[in-house]
């Protein structure tokens, strides 16, 4: 099984540049243009589709393996995140850096959670709709949804108002947030590790 994982991982990694090229190609020229082709181009188009399908299946398989297999996780993710534990000192430093990363990530997640929940809207009403003679309104809200509701039909706005500022949750997609968090985890860990090593060289044993 380990050998199979290793083969799958290599196929996944070697296929990655091809998939990136395919993605750039389809983004620039659109996939529809290649559907009507004949001959070698048609063959190439079909082959690319097959490569992408295989790569997609492999990515699902490997990500599940990463979740369920501790040894596979150690082998792949430790290399990907540059974790080195060659002796007890490095194990200790890794522990400290991981603790720092965990706590800072948690702080970032809490911050993102609040940012995604809060809703602020500042707008101006027409003079005839003034409330207590005031036309400037600040509306605050707290929205929490377990599921995406983008497909839900929201009631149409009937109030005639001039928006000055409107904020209703994070403007980035969930995919972007997940990607940013992955990058954050790796960067934060390596930054903490570098800092701990620098402190150690200065003879400082504290955090």
């Amino acid at each position, binding site marked *: 099984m380990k050998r199979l994982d290793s083969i799958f991982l290599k196929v996944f990694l070697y296929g990655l540049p091809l998939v990136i090229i395919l993605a750039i190609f389809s983004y620039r020229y659109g996939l529809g243009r290649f559907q009507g082709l004949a001959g070698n181009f048609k063959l190439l188009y079909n082959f690319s589709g097959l490569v992408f399908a295989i790569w997609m299946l492999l990515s699902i398989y490997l990500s599940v393996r990463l979740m369920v297999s501790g040894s596979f996780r150690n082998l792949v993710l430790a290399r990907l995140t540059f974790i080195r534990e060659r002796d007890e*000192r490095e194990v200790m430093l890794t522990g400290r850096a991981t603790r720092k990363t965990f706590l800072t990530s948690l702080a970032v997640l809490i911050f993102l959670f609040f940012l995604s929940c809060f809703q602020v809207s500042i707008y101006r009403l027409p003079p005839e709709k003034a409330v207590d003679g005031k036309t400037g309104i600040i509306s605050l809200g707290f929205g929490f949804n377990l599921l995406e509701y983008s497909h839900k039909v929201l009631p149409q706005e009937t109030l005639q108002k001039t928006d000055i500022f409107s904020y209703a949750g994070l403007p980035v997609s969930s995919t972007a947030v997940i990607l940013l968090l992955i990058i954050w985890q790796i960067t934060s860990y390596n930054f903490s590790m570098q800092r701990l090593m620098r402190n150690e060289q200065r003879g400082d044993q504290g955090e």
Partner: protein
Amino acid sequence: MPKWPPRLKIVNRLHVWRAEHRLTQEQLAKEIGVTRATIVAIEGGGYNPSLELAFRIARFFNTDINAIFAIEEEAR
């Protein structure tokens, strides 16, 4: 106010023992199975080795652990 016990600082004479045995940091690291950075950190006082590693170092130099590592009281 509770009276805290004095803080203890572990000092070592590893660089002296290493020099006496004419060993480089790299050589010593290889002999006791750690990285050179660990030897640098121990000698510089930036890292206190575990008991196991301290005993391993003492055994390598064929001496008592107290000959290499000692405790000093640190003023708070």
